[in-house]
């Protein structure tokens, strides 16, 4: 009897200690699991800091040598060792601005078509087709731009622009120049084609979040489709739409290959949109592997740092604006 109970207690004690050991083991494993995945997530934060830090460090020689002149001079002369960022920065801003000027209205139109106009069976295929456009690698856009679109520009569009817009006093100077085909305007158009899918898909998505009851009330009051879009849908989604536009801008600013092919890599400041120019990304792509002096390389990395800071600010604004809409939805 006593033997039996002793065996029994020892068995339960065994089992208890076994399950306790197991619980402790599970807890230990969980702790390590948690630490590992947390470490991976922290790596993402660390990476961003490293990217900013390393490009700042890499560009420090240029920043030290030229000081503020780096941002205010137009010289870019590898032989004389003089580097100023004005031309590439100007080129980046102008091409991106042109791209937005074209892409925003077009994307808005496509988004209206997809949410209000098209019959339901047509929405899916067209949305997918537009997204296919986003999937095409940027180098294909660049090649197409160089071999197909630039000759087209040189033969048809540039002469027309030169004749008709170049004569307007005031803004005419923007549109004068030889019909080279490559240049700021061509780069802006190719960039616009590239960012249309990004802006469209954001607009399409946020337009869908507008409560149906809201739209139907407007229709019931006799509003036309256009009035519903302009007075109901757009005000409701305004910040997110601007966020989508900024997302497109972020893409356009940092886009390299498409621009490098059609911009012409010329280091001169020109008022005309038909003249070749250069952007930050295209200068880096064209010159980095051939930069033989440390100062040249450092100037290029410094340009990269500027690009990173600008796109970071633009993309951060975009995300904050997009987040505001999802908060409104209560998601």
């Amino acid at each position: 009897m006593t033997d039996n109970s002793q065996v029994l207690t020892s068995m339960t004690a065994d089992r208890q200690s076994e399950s306790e050991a197991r619980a402790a083991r599970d807890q230990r494993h969980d702790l390590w699991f948690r630490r590992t995945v947390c470490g991976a997530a922290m790596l993402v934060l660390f990476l961003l800091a490293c990217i900013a830090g390393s490009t700042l460090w890499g560009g420090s020689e240029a920043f030290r040598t030229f000081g503020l002149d780096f941002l205010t001079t137009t010289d870019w002369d590898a032989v004389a060792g003089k580097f100023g960022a004005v031309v590439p920065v100007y080129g980046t801003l102008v091409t991106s601005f042109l791209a937005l000027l074209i892409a925003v209205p077009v994307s808005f139109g496509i988004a209206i078509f997809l949410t209000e106009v098209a019959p339901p069976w047509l929405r899916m295929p067209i949305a997918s087709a537009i997204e296919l456009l986003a999937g095409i690698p940027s180098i294909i856009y660049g090649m197409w731009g160089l071999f197909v679109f630039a000759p087209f520009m040189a033969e048809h569009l540039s002469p027309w622009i030169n004749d008709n817009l170049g004569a307007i006093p005031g803004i005419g100077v923007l549109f004068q120049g030889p019909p080279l085909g490559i240049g700021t305007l061509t780069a802006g158009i190719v960039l616009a084609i590239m960012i249309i899918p990004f802006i469209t898909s954001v607009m399409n998505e946020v337009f869908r979040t507008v409560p149906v009851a809201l739209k139907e009330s407007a229709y019931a009051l006799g509003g036309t489709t256009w009035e519903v879009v302009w007075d109901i849908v757009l005000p409701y989604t305004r910040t997110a739409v601007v966020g989508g536009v900024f997302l497109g801008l972020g893409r356009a600013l940092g886009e390299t290959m498409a621009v490098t092919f059609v911009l012409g890599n010329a280091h001169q400041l020109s008022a005309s949109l038909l003249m070749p120019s250069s952007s930050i990304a295209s200068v880096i792509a064209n010159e980095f592997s051939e930069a033989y002096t440390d100062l040249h390389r450092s100037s290029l990395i410094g340009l990269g740092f500027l690009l990173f800071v600008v796109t970071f600010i633009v993309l951060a604004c975009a995300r904050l604006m997009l987040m505001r809409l999802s908060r409104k939805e209560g998601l």
Partner: protein
Amino acid sequence: MSSANENLYRMRSFKNKLAMVLSCSATLFGLGWLVWILATTLINGFSALGTALFTQMTPSPGSPGGLANAFYGSALMSLIALAIGTPIGLMAGVWLAEFARHTKLGTVVRFINDILLSAPSIVLGLFVYTAFILPVSAMTNHQVGFSALAGALTLALLVIPVVVRTTDEMLQLQPSTMREAALALGVPQWKLTLQIVLRAARAGVVTGVLLALARITGETAPLLFTAFGNQYWSSDILKPMASVPVVIFQFAMSPFDDWHALAWAGALVLTMFVLTLSLLSRLILLRDRSN
């Protein structure tokens, strides 16, 4: 009075019609570019397609050749990039979805990851150049400079944010009742995550990896000064290596017609591969949803 109303009505109706016409033409305009670009790539690419493309090395101007070494380089670097980037992205995504769903730190990481997702890839190349190539070159007495490994690391930096984002989203979609059921049975958290939640979200996670692959196969800019390029076959990951996009860039920018033809052929293969991947990932998601 009634004529004023009539006028107002006409005006509104006209405005609406104009807007609808513009909206339709915007769609046609957008699709027009797609058709134009795809058609050009198909026509120019097919005329240069042949078995030599996949069996011969990149030629010097004037002699026949293919892109075999570039295809090999691209495949190898993409594989290494996926091997490095996928586990890190998966783990970070798991942390975001399972441990930090509504925390401040989680929001910050998600925010930063979204920015990395659309950060200019050329800057990532500069980062790898200053943080990897320069130190390694200094350590090995300039024996190792531009290398395939550096290229793969750059591509891995592009893989991580894509995988983090999709993993996070797909895990958040999984019902919490499933997690609770497992926890009630006494399953430890790591087992719950790896063997139950991740398994349920498998299709979504695979989609993320495919999308990441689609993104890096077309990536050119950061490879220009990390993997550089190589005219010959090389399987040494510490040496410069050719990749399809970089070869396309060099060949397209050259003045030689036979190089242009090869560049178009490469562009065609690249485009088809990327489009197939994105279609495939869509199909996987669709099939998963219908189940």
